[in-house]
């Protein structure tokens, strides 16, 4: 779930960690009651500051994705379908924004991108 955490990215590590968890919940890979790794275990696995993991878990709790049970750990909450769909849409938007930015840097037009997307996916995409 956390394989592609990138410390060099301008997105703070706690945001990256929280985003991965939200996406896993949205995709159904994590369900209600599932335990997240302990702060210590995740800090150790990712070799990041434990405070970074704490911050990520706190943000997830504030968003209603997880529950922090004192002394027991962090557990995934029941998340309504519409929230999960919103999360997926938000992630899709983010991917597209990155793609558009990179394309602009290379001088590639939106039409060219659309054509490439059609070819790659074999699906005719139009508005």
């Amino acid at each position, binding site marked *: 779930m956390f394989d592609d955490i990138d*410390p*060099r*990215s*301008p997105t*703070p*590590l706690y945001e990256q960690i929280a985003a991965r968890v939200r996406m896993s919940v949205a995709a159904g890979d994590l369900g209600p009651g599932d335990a997240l790794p302990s*702060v*210590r275990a995740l*800090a*150790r696995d*990712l*070799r*990041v*500051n*434990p*405070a*970074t993991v704490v911050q990520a878990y706190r943000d997830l709790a504030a968003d209603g994705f997880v529950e922090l049970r004192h002394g027991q750990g962090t557990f995934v909450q029941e998340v309504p379908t519409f929230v999960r769909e919103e999360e997926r849409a938000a992630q899709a938007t983010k991917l597209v924004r990155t793609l558009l930015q990179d394309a*602009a*840097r290379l001088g590639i037009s939106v039409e060219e991108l659309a054509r490439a997307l059609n070819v790659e996916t074999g699906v005719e995409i139009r508005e």
Partner: protein
Amino acid sequence: MNSAIEMTDVAWRAGGSFEVKDLSLRVPTGSIYGFLGPNGSGKTTTIRMSMGMLKPDRGTIRVLGRDVPRDMPKVLARVGYVPERPHVYPALTVREQVRFHASFFRLWDAGWADELSERLGLDPERRISRMSKGETGKLLMLLALSQRPDLLVLDEPTDGLDPVVRRDVLTALLDYVSETNATVFISSHLVHELERICDWVGVMDDGRLVVELPMQAFKNGIKRIKVADAPAVPEEPPFTILSRERLNGAGSETWIVRGWQDPMRHYFDGAGIGLRDVVDLDLEEGFVELLRSSRPTPPYRS
């Protein structure tokens, strides 16, 4: 006590040309503070002053709320220090060195020292004179952690260690911090390593502290931007321009700016400058650009 280390207007001179000037530095309690700077910038000198091993000519130093060097014995009882050069005895074995070191510390955790020794794969019967750099590095971290310090002061603790050992040593450190919320003041040349674990950054250059910021603020505040129609003297930008480089084409330039925030994009409309792109820099690039500009150079580089 909000600062584990607090240095105020510290000055120190070696007699030669090198000096530390007007150094004010603050390591917040509970932070992992990455201390960066090129060789000879004064990192080790600063660390040695904070450990009471050099007395500043001017200024005050407080560590864990106590006066340094006056209260140094009390401070040292609560600080795990990994110096630049190993302070272990070549003639001793690992077991003997650990026992010797333990005798100085009331809070010494022998159980944890044994566990660390096993986890790090140290042989207790091995003589220190026969140990590799990696093994010595592991031993130094073991000694610093087993005294259960409130503050760890680590001067290049992973310098010259191979990636596997480095990972073991850092994991031991992070485990300890997870458990205790200890403060860590760590210098390293391995910028990407610090980028992962630190939440504060201080950068030294030529005996001065050039910047001290939360990691995220430091990283997000330095950008490379591409502009068109750049005037010779831009009208009071809300950010600091560290450097300018001309590109091909009239008025096209690359700027490195500091103190950037995204709403500052609006400045360019008002100033009649075209903003073409804002590129993120990672810690290493930001660090290099900052040092390049902290030295007296003309504003344009070729």
